[in-house]
């Protein structure tokens, strides 16, 4: 996988499989510290300490269709190859948090890629779940929280085509603003 946004999509699938109803994704870039941090946290079934230990082990999976689980090992590899690291914390019945840290300027650091494509895919496929996406760059930030959108939408579902295109439009506007303003300050 050549984009961090695809790893995000994959790690969020774990949260969905764990029965999560709310998944928070954050991408935080700090140019001075030269870091890019991705955090995915969910309120799914969580893992016991025993399970958590085995997840760090590649090839651990609770799926029955295939014996190997590659999602977390691949994400860890992507982080470590760019001089970063991956951490997972989890509590049964509470949820799970996956945090990856990357060295932002490292040659092997994959591009963030189409995060908007990942977010809209997740919402379109799971209109009944809540996603909160937060992105920050050097302390400035924007966020999209489907639970807030729902409050406005009432009966209209999130996967309504007009709603979906509003979400994509809002995302692109906000992320342009975020990266554009930095260019001005440089």
């Amino acid at each position: 996988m050549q984009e961090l946004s695809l790893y995000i999509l994959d790690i969020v699938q774990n949260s969905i499989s764990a029965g999560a109803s709310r998944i928070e994704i954050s991408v935080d870039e700090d140019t001075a510290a030269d870091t890019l941090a991705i955090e995915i946290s969910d309120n799914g079934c969580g893992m016991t300490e025993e399970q958590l230990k085995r997840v760090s082990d590649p090839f651990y999976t609770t799926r029955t269709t295939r014996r190997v689980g590659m999602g977390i090992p691949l994400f860890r590899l992507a982080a470590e190859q760019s001089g970063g690291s991956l951490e997972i914390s989890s509590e049964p019945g509470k949820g799970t948090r996956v945090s990856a840290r990357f060295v932002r300027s490292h040659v092997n650091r994959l591009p963030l890629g189409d995060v908007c494509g990942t977010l809209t895919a997740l919402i379109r496929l799971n209109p009944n779940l809540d996603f909160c996406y937060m992105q920050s760059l050097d302390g400035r930030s924007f966020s999209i929280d489907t639970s807030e959108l729902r409050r406005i939408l009432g009966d209209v579902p999130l996967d309504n085509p007009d709603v979906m295109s509003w979400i994509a439009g809002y995302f692109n506007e906000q992320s342009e603003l975020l990266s554009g303003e930095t260019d001005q300050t440089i």
Partner: protein
Amino acid sequence: MKSLAELQAIRDKARMQMQMRKDNSEAIRVVIGMATCGISAGARPVLNAFVQEIEKRRLENVVVTQTGCIGMCQFEPIVEVFVPGKDKVTYAKVTPEKVPRIVADHLVNGNPVMEYTIGSVMK
């Protein structure tokens, strides 16, 4: 203490299930494999192509959902199409370029695109 957000999530979930029950009996279901194998093989652009095509044609009776790994990773992206009253059709190695024909021939006109199915791709 229960939060308002929680209450709204419960309310929306109940509404969604009502809609799903209705959809299950009438709607065509397009199910895309979204496990690690599917995503790394290109499931995201395939999904977006389906969504675009379905919206372009204003198809109201199609539900797009996801599934995990079904154990045939080498054939991902895999898309399963369930038309009510018909056998499931499994498409393998789907690309965004194949999607308009699957939507036109299969979802609209009811004729599965045999050359894109897993049986043909395996040969």
